């Protein structure tokens, strides 16, 4: 595979861009692989990539029912941060954030990581106390965050109205090296690197059954036929419950719709990410100039990839109060994704009751930011058969044991 570089751009510029290669192969599935990953979203692709890169496991197929990156990975609002409260969360999200810093170089693919800073507004006394506590926790965890006062918020975000009317801004937790990345590029970059290592990415191929011999996995049934394997990773976000059912176990996961929307492009006016969790809205500006907007998830189970309209209304209402200048913006697009919510709002990276089957799910509304760290931890788990320190707290058994990683109180909205 040819490397991307400034010289390649110059060379192709001189020959009408005729020499670019396909970024990944589209092979027909073989009869068997050592390892199958189900789901070519960011987490599945990153798992495959680190299996190859860190553990030398390359006889891998990644099976995707639609197109790669077409699930939540291609539908999210791309916020990357690691200012979580619990130690286990901070560890894996900070691992992911630090991998994002050099991901473009590692993958030779521009994922446009932009550490522009993420600010989470405190708009109630409860949030002030909560975020000050998180800043202290982050200090101990080695995550660089700080508490900032309203005047500093205004300085960083000139378009914000800090004086109310409903919820004046009382301060914020600020993570200067948090930010955004191009979501598609993250999936595409990992896919290209996996393909280059000789892995097969099989798109338009839905897994319809999981084969077992006793309590051991032997392969999958797909719309392109049966494929055998020794080891399998289920990494399908909102569809995790269905795959677990095929494998014969249950999950503490419910699937709900989460929406986002973008405005028409406007001149640069916001160069950080602002999240307002009390009023359920968050905002950033894409490189194209669109205002990228997200809000809360629906409260009922849903697989339709469309959310309820009133959530859009609530989100926009909250943001207009906070950023009065966007009140006349027109919206370009709105969409939804099916997110996988667990009881403690933390992910699952775990062995399962079926030998050889591992699962990575439960990232819910906030798993774009964790893709590199989650893939790293999942690959380690699958390669060794036992979790490393990053994955260990995220086991499936924690719900039975009451060992929760409770992020639901820390941040009601956790994008």
């Amino acid at each position, binding site marked *: 595979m040819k490397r991307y570089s400034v010289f390649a751009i110059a060379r192709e510029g001189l020959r009408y861009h005729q020499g670019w290669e396909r970024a990944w192969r589209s092979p027909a599935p073989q009869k068997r692989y050592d390892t199958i990953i189900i789901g070519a979203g960011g987490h599945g692709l990153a798992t495959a990539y680190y299996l190859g890169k860190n553990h030398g496991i390359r006889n891998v197929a990644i099976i995707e029912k639609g197109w790669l990156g077409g699930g939540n990975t291609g539908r999210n609002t791309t916020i990357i941060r690691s200012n979580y409260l619990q130690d286990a969360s901070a560890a894996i999200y900070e691992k992911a954030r630090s991998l994002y810093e050099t991901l473009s170089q590692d993958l030779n693919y521009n994922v446009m990581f932009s550490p522009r800073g993420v600010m989470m507004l405190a708009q109630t006394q409860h949030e002030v106390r909560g975020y000050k506590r998180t800043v202290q926790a982050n200090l101990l965890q080695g995550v660089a965050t700080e508490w900032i006062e309203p005047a500093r918020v205004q300085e960083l975000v000139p378009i914000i109205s800090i004086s109310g009317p409903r919820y004046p801004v009382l301060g914020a937790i600020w993570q200067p090296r948090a930010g955004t990345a191009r979501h598609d590029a993250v999936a595409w970059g990992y896919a290209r690197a996996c393909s280059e290592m000789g892995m097969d990415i099989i798109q338009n191929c839905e897994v319809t059954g999981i084969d077992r011999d006793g309590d051991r996995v032997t392969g999958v049934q797909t719309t392109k036929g049966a494929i055998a394997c020794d080891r399998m990773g289920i990494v399908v976000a909102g*569809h995790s*419950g*269905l795959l677990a059912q095929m494998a014969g176990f*249950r*999950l*503490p*996961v*419910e*699937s709900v719709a989460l929406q986002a929307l973008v405005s028409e492009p406007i001149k640069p006016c916001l160069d950080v990410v602002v999240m307002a969790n009390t009023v359920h809205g968050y905002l950033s500006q894409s490189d194209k100039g669109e205002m990228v907007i997200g809000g809360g998830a*629906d*409260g*009922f*189970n*849903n*697989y*339709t990839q469309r959310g*309820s*309209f*009133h959530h859009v209304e609530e989100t926009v209402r909250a943001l207009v109060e906070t950023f009065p200048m966007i009140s006349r913006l027109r919206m370009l697009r709105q969409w939804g994704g099916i997110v996988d919510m*667990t*009881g403690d709002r933390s992910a699952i990276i775990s062995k399962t009751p079926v030998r050889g089957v591992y699962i990575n799910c439960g990232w819910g509304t906030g798993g774009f930011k964790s893709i590199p760290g989650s893939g790293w931890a999942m690959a380690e788990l699958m390669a060794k058969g036992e979790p490393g320190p990053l994955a260990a707290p995220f086991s499936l058994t924690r*719900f*039975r*044991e009451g060992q929760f990683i409770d992020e639901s109180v820390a941040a009601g909205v956790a994008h």
Partner: protein
Amino acid sequence: MLILTCPNCGIAAEETELSPGGEAHLHRHGPGSSDGEFEEYLFLKENPRGVHFERWRHSHGCGKWFHAARDTATLQVFGTYSAQTTEPPQHIRDAITAARPGWRWRDFS
């Protein structure tokens, strides 16, 4: 917009009038239950792509709880019924069977 008819007051209520209350017909467990039973009750929720039974509350209306039978893949509503039931009544099951022959949900069919 999801519209459910509240069986308590008869109003066709929009989603904004209602509060979702999660999975219906849970088996509750008391003192002396095992960790596994508590895990099941608290966390191992039904999450089907298809026929589903839920609790809802008409919170901005009569304030009462009720049950709804719904399809999570199409958002079709099969019917609503009293919260004072431990399993879906026959007319609701018949309505589902008419639209989704062969359906199953937990022990119900």
